[in-house]
């Protein structure tokens, strides 16, 4: 036995022979009533890097009802980097329902055999990814924060938070294809659109009888978009946490937000205490945000909150506890009482804006 154990011949866990010919990177382009969810463009940006690393095509998959500008969405997808788009349009596909969409996507995968399939982790994407992965009996990694190709094995190394975000883990789908992954909105950067890019549209027939589908959509009540907060795509966010002590003090957050034209957010405890609504919760079990400015008042900065907002360009933290974890990753910190600092900030921004308008 030589002293230094020689490096064992790596019995790589082999790719199942059934999947050896699976090629190309796919992104599901999520659209509801002709409206594309921007996470799909972010995924095309990410998918372009993976396709280039694997030296394969990047393909979009568009599933929509007839007349919901299917071709227009494909054209937009080419602008964001897709080389080809598979287009399925049928009346049963008008409103999202799990059964027809799962059948459409799994049939497409079994026919055209991609090696990677990515979906946005919206409510639609998560619902669809779970049943498609089960139908195909393949691997699915959810809420990925980083996607890399392991050049030696060509496997997708998908990294995601675990244990509530306090840790990260890298997950492999070694033997099965396609390797599926979902990514939350605003986690990947939005690519620049190049309208001159062209691509090939493959129209795929889809046959399914409405009568064979059990679940019916009786009504669709769109959120009144005026008051529905859109935190994931907000440029400026003012967020409050338990440090504000009382629900009434949240008014101070609203005042500053109004002056800045910002969205209001909050940590999980204040949402659960009912100080603000669920759609405003930032963090691991709430929204992921990527604003240009994030002002956090009375938020300790626990890991579960941090994973939802540390992608912000500039983070300002106000907390009375100098040892609060948020000061470890914020850009600027004020150790003080949020109830007095917030009004002062509102005045300071007001004065600054008034002076800028005079000068402008």
């Amino acid at each position, binding site marked *: *036995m030589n002293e230094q154990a020689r490096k064992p011949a790596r019995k790589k*866990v082999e790719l199942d022979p059934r999947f050896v010919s699976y090629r190309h990177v796919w992104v599901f382009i999520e659209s509801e009533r002709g409206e594309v969810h921007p996470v799909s463009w972010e995924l095309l940006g990410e998918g372009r890097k993976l396709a280039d690393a694997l030296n394969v095509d990047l393909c979009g998959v568009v599933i929509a009802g007839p007349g919901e500008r299917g071709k227009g969405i494909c054209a937009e997808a080419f602008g964001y980097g897709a080389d080809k788009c598979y287009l399925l349009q049928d009346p049963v596909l008008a409103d999202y329902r799990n059964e027809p969409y799962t059948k459409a996507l799994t049939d497409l995968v079994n026919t055209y055999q991609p090696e990677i399939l990515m979906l946005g982790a919206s409510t639609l994407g998560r619902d669809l990814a779970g049943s498609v992965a089960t139908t195909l009996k393949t691997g699915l990694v959810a809420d990925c924060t980083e996607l890399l190709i392991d050049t030696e094995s060509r496997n997708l190394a998908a990294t995601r938070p675990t244990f509530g975000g306090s840790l990260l883990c890298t997950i492999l789908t070694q033997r099965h294809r396609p390797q599926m992954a979902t990514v939350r909105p605003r986690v990947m950067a939005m690519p620049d659109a190049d309208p001159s890019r062209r691509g090939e549209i493959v129209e795929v027939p889809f046959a399914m009888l409405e009568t064979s589908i059990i679940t019916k959509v009786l009504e669709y009540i769109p959120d009144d978009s005026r008051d529905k907060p859109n935190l994931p795509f907000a440029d400026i966010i003012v967020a409050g946490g338990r440090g504000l002590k009382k629900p009434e003090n949240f008014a101070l957050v609203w005042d500053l937000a109004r002056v800045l034209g910002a969205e209001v957010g909050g940590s999980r405890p204040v949402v659960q205490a009912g100080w603000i609504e669920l759609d405003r919760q930032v963090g691991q079990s709430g929204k992921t945000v990527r604003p240009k400015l994030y002002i956090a008042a009375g938020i300790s900065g626990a890991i579960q909150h941090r994973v939802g907002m540390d992608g912000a360009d500039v983070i300002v933290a106000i907390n009375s506890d100098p040892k609060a974890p948020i000061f470890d990753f914020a850009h600027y910190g004020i150790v003080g009482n949020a109830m007095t600092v917030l009004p002062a900030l509102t005045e300071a921004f007001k004065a600054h804006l008034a002076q800028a308008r005079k000068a402008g």
Partner: protein
Amino acid sequence: MAYKIVSSQCTACAACESVCPNVAIFPKSGVYAIDPVKCTECIGHHDEAQCVIDCPADCIVIDKNVPRYAA
């Protein structure tokens, strides 16, 4: 000598437990560990240590402070 699992890198995926010919691997405080007494570095069973090959985290190494196993 025997092999040992670097507990800090072990992801508790249990890939090693079932391939050990000497049933030397067992769950321990949230991850897995190898009983140095039972581990024979697969000598007499295979020419490669099965657990080392199957570990996705590549975190099974020679345990230096256990005398080398003489066949």
